[in-house]
């Protein structure tokens, strides 16, 4: 057990930190947000030039071959900068699914381009009635000659407007289970309705009206995608925790600065003990969130197990609770100014709260953990 970054990891963290700091000022972010794509293609190009887009991809597909720890380092800085690019959904979540489920051919044809930042992926796995349960879907895949026809509606596909390939979940009409398909969004019958999410990144709803996909667009065995979805959502959760920690650190820093400078009743408001204690409590929760994010990063690539699932659920739960606390309290401690669009803090608050609406909120993960709780067997005999 050790908590130190090695030299390479420290360099990676520094590189991303510097890039974000230099190109992603809050004013720039607002420009990116208002632009048609909703993010910065230029920043994405820089990320790919520096090899950052390749970090989560295995070396055999021209990636950097990073682990959960490297993903954490990248995501933390993207979180600090409130970056709008679909790194998590494309490079980590979707690419992870391709790597885990794809045939050698599928992987070779997709992943190098993803690593190079040239091909954007995303996953369409939420529906109106699924609420973080990827198995609770209604979208259907009906087998047809040399392929399938997909029908249904997908909700809130992050980065879905610009993705070159969308990994779509569907229920097999002729059997049990959930399958994953590689979907070309230009295919006939696909329609996308785009919008910004309240925390910044753009997403879309996806309507599939008898969309034909070829046989080789099936990713992994038919009807058996659920374990891979669960596993890769675990990796995504770990990465998202890091994003939240980056954003929390920044929100906390802004608030601490504000408390030291804002004068009321003749002194900096940070002199008031009630606010000091609240900051101490927030600092404590931030510390726990950091620790659980490290834990999540370290187990993200472990083989699937109940222990891994428990730890990832605990990480997301802890981080989600801390995120909401720090979001709400940072705004509260700022007063009105913390609620204004023109101040980055307000956007950190939105990000921190709305991140909990992807991959499960605190209650969802509390439920997951409860279901996996280790309970003593025949305890009554033991203790009675």
């Amino acid at each position, binding site marked *: 057990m050790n908590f130190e970054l090695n030299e390479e990891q420290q360099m990676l963290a520094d590189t991303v930190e510097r890039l974000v700091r230099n190109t992603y000022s809050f004013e720039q972010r607002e420009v990116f947000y208002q632009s048609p794509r909703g993010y910065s293609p230029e920043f994405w190009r820089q990320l790919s030039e520096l090899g950052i887009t390749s970090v989560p991809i295995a070396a055999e597909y021209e990636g950097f071959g990073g682990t959960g720890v490297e993903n954490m380092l990248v995501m933390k800085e993207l979180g600090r900068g409130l970056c709008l690019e679909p790194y998590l959904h494309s490079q980590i979540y979707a690419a992870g699914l391709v790597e885990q489920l794809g045939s050698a051919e599928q992987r070779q044809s997709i992943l190098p381009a993803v690593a190079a930042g040239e091909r954007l992926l995303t996953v369409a796995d*939420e529906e*109106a*009635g*699924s*609420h*973080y*349960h990827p*198995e*609770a879907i209604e979208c259907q895949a009906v087998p047809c000659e040399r392929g399938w026809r997909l029908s249904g509606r997908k*909700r*809130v596909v992050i980065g879905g407007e610009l993705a070159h390939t969308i990994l779509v979940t569907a229920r097999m009409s002729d059997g049990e289970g959930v399958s994953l398909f590689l979907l070309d969004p230009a295919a006939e019958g696909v329609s996308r*309705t785009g*919008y*910004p*999410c*309240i*925390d910044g990144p753009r*997403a879309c*709803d996806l309507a599939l009206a008898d969309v034909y996909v070829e046989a080789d667009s099936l990713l992994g065995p038919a009807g058996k995608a659920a374990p891979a979805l669960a596993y890769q959502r675990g990796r995504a959760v770990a990465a998202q925790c890091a994003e939240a920690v980056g954003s929390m650190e920044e929100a906390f820093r802004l608030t601490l600065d504000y408390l030291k400078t804002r*004068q*009321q*009743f003749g002194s900096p408001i940070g002199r*008031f003990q*009630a*606010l000091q204690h609240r900051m101490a409590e927030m600092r404590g929760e931030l510390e726990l969130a950091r620790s659980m994010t490290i834990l999540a990063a370290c187990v993200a690539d472990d083989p699937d197990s109940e222990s891994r699932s428990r730890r990832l659920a605990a990480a997301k739960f802890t981080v989600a609770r801390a995120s909401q606390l720090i979001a*709400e309290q940072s*705004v*509260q401690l700022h*007063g*009105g100014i*913390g*609620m*204004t*669009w*023109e101040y980055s803090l*307000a*956007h950190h*608050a*939105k990000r921190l*709260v*709305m991140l909990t*609406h*992807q991959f499960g*909120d605190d*209650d969802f993960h*509390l*439920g997951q953990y409860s279901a996996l709780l280790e309970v003593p067997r025949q305890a009554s005999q033991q203790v009675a």
Partner: protein
Amino acid sequence: MDIHFTPEELAFRSEVWAFLGLNLPADLAEKVRLGRRLAKEDHQRWQKILNQKGWYAVNWPEEYGGTGWSVVQKHIFDEECAAAGAPRLVAFGVNMVAPVIIKFGTQAQKDYYLPRILRSEDWWCQGYSEPGAGSDLASLKTRAERDGDYYVVNGQKTWTTLGQHANRIFCLVRTDPSAKKQEGISFLLIDMDTPGITVRPIITLDGEHEVNEVFFDNVRVPVENLVGEENKGWTCAKYLLTHERTGQAGIGQSKAALAHLKQIASAETVAGQPRIDDPLFRARIAELEMRLMAVEMSTLRILAATRDGGVPGAESSLLKIQGSEIRQAITDLMRKALGPNALPFLEPELESDFHGEPLYQDYSASPASQYFNLRKLSIYGGSNEIQKNIIAKLVLEL
């Protein structure tokens, strides 16, 4: 001691219910239910309907056009209005500046302003906060210097809610710069059309234009617009603050919001099962409903214990804290009930005149926005921290 409604109170409830059924425009109620923005005209339309019935200036003394209702009647009225989806009254005119004018104003001020408020001819806004004086209200810097029959006002106000609609503003200004903090402040009524006033919007984190900055550049205000004595404006301010905090408890609003939450949690399903049937989520709603019951009882009890028409002193701070926390907690659960469906930021669907097909459900666009918007409740009207200071000092004498 009996918390049951009397037959008279039950009859009153029926009367209010019947009135709302007949007179509350369905399109207005629909906008309120769905959390749409309300236009200025929406508010005015409803104010005029209420005024016609004599139910607009609920908190005024009868001789000025008030209702003379008891605390319980006012509560019933609020609750029924909120349940029916009536627009929340914008307080600045009818429930903020009016009580001050009634208590401290001259006969001429009463004769002029009160009927205009009743008839919705004036839209008032509040000039209290300044960039350097938020929670520390008394450190305000906007100056008013006497020049013959005028005050010349210079300075800046901020967080001016719905100032973009207003034709009048009531302001705290500093008339004696040499006096200490609370002393030397006066309470002025200002016509927003006076030359030298500029209103600039502040966009909040939910993308809304609800608050403004108001700049005063040599604005000439007739001295007869002074309310109460010069340099004694803090007395008006304090009087108004307890009115404001009491109004902020918002029990009726919270009950309506909770009912809406339960509807959303029943409509949203996971694998076909309504969210409200999830034991943990149901317990969260139950907990909130129990707390709201307790806050409602406390509000009624505290208001009933006051003698002067339902405006308690320092205990209003308790109501303000608890009322604001519960409204925030309800929007928190509303957002959570939607899960991923809370993410889209669909501004057009929030517009007052939106008549299109919603992307998902008609209720889905507003919960996340409202959650962020209502962070203001624990900040404005004296932040909840300030309220705790007040309780510690005035109630607990610490």
